[in-house]
C-alpha cells in the first residue's frame, strides 16, 4: 500500500540537478521532503541539522560519493536511514555503499510507486534488495571457503539463500512468503539478516572491493 507512517521526513542527496527535481516531484505527495543537497560536505551538514528519517543518496558524487555521506552521518546520527539510489549498478558501487551502512540499493530506473514502497520499507527498518543486489550477494557468498572467519557472518543460511534467489527471480516479499510458506515478517527478517552479513562480513570478495577503492 502507498503512503507512509505519518510524516516520514525524507532528505535527498544527488549532484544531478534534473534528477533531484524529478525525485522531489515523485515523492512529494507521499512524504515530507525536508531538504536537498548536491555535494558531500553540504549533505553531511544539512542532514545533521534537518535530522530526517530516510535519506536518498546517490552513489557517484565528487568528494567520496554517497558512501562518504553514509559513513559520516552514521557516526553522529545512527538513527538516520539511508537508501542508495543510483544510475550505476556496478558491483563495487553497490557493495561499497551498503558496507558503509546503507539499508538498500535501487537503480534510477525504478518506477515512482516502487520508490515510494522502498522508502517506506527503509523507514520501517527493513532492507531493500533489488534483484541485481540479490545476485551480487549470492555471487559474493558463493564459494564456501575452507576456513570461514566468522561462521555467523560469513555464510548464508539455506533459508537466506532461498529468499535471495527468489528476490533475484523477481518475486515480491508477498510472493516469497507464499512460496516458502512463511509470513512476510519472517521474510523481512531474513533479508535484514543478509544485509547485516553483507555489511559486516570479512569475506574476501567483499573486502577486496573496499581495499581497491581504499575505503576500509
Amino acid at each position: 500500500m502507498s503512503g507512509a507512517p505519518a510524516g516520514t521526513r525524507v532528505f535527498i542527496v544527488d549532484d544531478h540537478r534534473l534528477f533531484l527535481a524529478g525525485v522531489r516531484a515523485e515523492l512529494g505527495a507521499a512524504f515530507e521532503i525536508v531538504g536537498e543537497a548536491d555535494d558531500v560536505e553540504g549533505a553531511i551538514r544539512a542532514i545533521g541539522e534537518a535530522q530526517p528519517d530516510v535519506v536518498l543518496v546517490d552513489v557517484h558524487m565528487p568528494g567520496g560519493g554517497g558512501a562518504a555521506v553514509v559513513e559520516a552521518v552514521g557516526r553522529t546520527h545512527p538513527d538516520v536511514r539511508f537508501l542508495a539510489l543510483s544510475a550505476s549498478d556496478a558491483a563495487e558501487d553497490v557493495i561499497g555503499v551498503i558496507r558503509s551502512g546503507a539499508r538498500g540499493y535501487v537503480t534510477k530506473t525504478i518506477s515512482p510507486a516502487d520508490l515510494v514502497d522502498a522508502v517506506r520499507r527503509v523507514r520501517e527498518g527493513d532492507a531493500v534488495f533489488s534483484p541485481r543486489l540479490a545476485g551480487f550477494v549470492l555471487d559474493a557468498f558463493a564459494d564456501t571457503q575452507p576456513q570461514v572467519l566468522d561462521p555467523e557472518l560469513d555464510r548464508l543460511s539455506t533459508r537466506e539463500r532461498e529468499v535471495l534467489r527468489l528476490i533475484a527471480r523477481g518475486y515480491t516479499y508477498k510472493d516469497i512468503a507464499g512460496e516458502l510458506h512463511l509470513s512476510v515478517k519472517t521474510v523481512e527478517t531474513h533479508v535484514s539478516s543478509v544485509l547485516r552479513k553483507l555489511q559486516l562480513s570479512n569475506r574476501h570478495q567483499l573486502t577486496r572491493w573496499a581495499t581497491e577503492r581504499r575505503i576500509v
Partner: protein
Amino acid sequence: MIAGVAGGLGEWLGVDSVLVRLAFVVLSLAGGVGIALYLILFAVSREETEAPERVRPGGGRQRTLAAILVLAGVLLVLRSIGLWFGDAFVWPVAIAAFGSAIIWVRADRSGRGWQPGFPLRPQSANGEAPSAPSISPARLLFGAVLVAGGTAAFLASNTSRGAIGTVIVATAVTLSGLALIIGPWIMRLARQLGDERRERIRVEERQDVAAHLHDSVLQTLALIQRSDDPARMAALARVQERELRSWLYRPQNPQRGDLLSTAVDALAERIELAHRIRVESVVVGDCPVDDGLQAVVDACGEALTNAAKHSGAAWVSLYVEVDADAVTAYVRDQGKGFDPGAVPEDRRGIADSIRGRLQRHGGTVEVVSAPGNGTEVRLTLPRSAE
C-alpha cells in the same frame, strides 16, 4: 641516425639496426670501407614516403648471429687485402663493438622474411620502436666486460704504459664533469618524456571514449528526439543504457565471447530491442557456453518472447544460476498468466519447442502459471562433470 641507412638496411635484412650501425663503425676502421659502403647505399636507396606502420623487427637470433659471423669474415678478408688500419686498432674496437651489440641488440624469436626493395627509414618519422624487453643482468655484465676489455686493450696497445694511468684519470675526471653539467638536464628530459607519454596516452583514451560515445549515445539521443512514440523512446533509451553500462563497467577485460553471462546479456538486449519490454537479467556464477547451455539460452529467448507477446506485463525477469552440478534459468513475468492445462493442442507450439530443445540435451522444463498470477518458466540443465 644520420640518414636512416642503417635502419633501412636492418629492416631489409631482418636484423636489428643497432647491429648494422656497429658493423658500419667497425668496417670503417678497415680502410674506411664502412664509410664508403654507407655512402654507396645512401646513394642507391630510395626514400620511403608512406608512414611506416610496421614495428621494426628485432631479427631472429640466428640471423643476428649470422650477420656477426659474416662481418667477422669480411673483416678478415679486408685484412688480408690490406684495407686495414692495424691489428692493434681494429680488433679492440671490434671486441668493444661486440660487447655493445650483446647489450643492445634485440633478438626476438620471430625472423622476418627478405623484403624486396631497400627503402630508407628515417628514424624521426615514426618514432622509436616499442621499448625493448628488459635486458638481463647477465647480458649487461658480459657486454660491459667486453666493452671495458676492448677499450683497455685499445689503450694498452696504442699508448705507452705510463700514459694509461693518466688517460684513465683524465677520462674519469672528464666524465664526472660532464655528469655534473648535463646530468640534471638529462633527468629533466627523461621526466618530460615520461610526462609527454602519459599525456599522449590520456589523449588517446579520450579520443576512444569520444568515438564510442559518438557512435552510440549521440545517435540514440538523436533518434529519441525524433521519435514521438513514448514506448519506442523508452525502449531506445533502455537499450542504450544497457550498452553504455556494459561498456563502462567492463573495459578492462575484453569481453569473453564464450561466457554464459555475455550470452545472457546479449539475449536480454535483443529481446528489449525487438519487443519493447524491460528485461531484468541477473546471472549468478559463470561458465563457458557449450551446446547444452546454448540450448538453454535459446529456450530462454523463446520464453522471453512469449512473455513479451502474450503476458501484457511491462517487464520480465530472467535469472540464471550456475552451480557445480546444474544450470538453472527462470523466466518470470507478472502478467495475466494462463492455465497450462487448458491450452489447446494446436497452440502448444512454443512450450513443446522449449521443452524439446532442453530434452535433447538432458534438461527439463517446468511451466508454472495461473490466470491473473503471472507465468514462470523454469529450465534446468544438468552439467556434466568436467
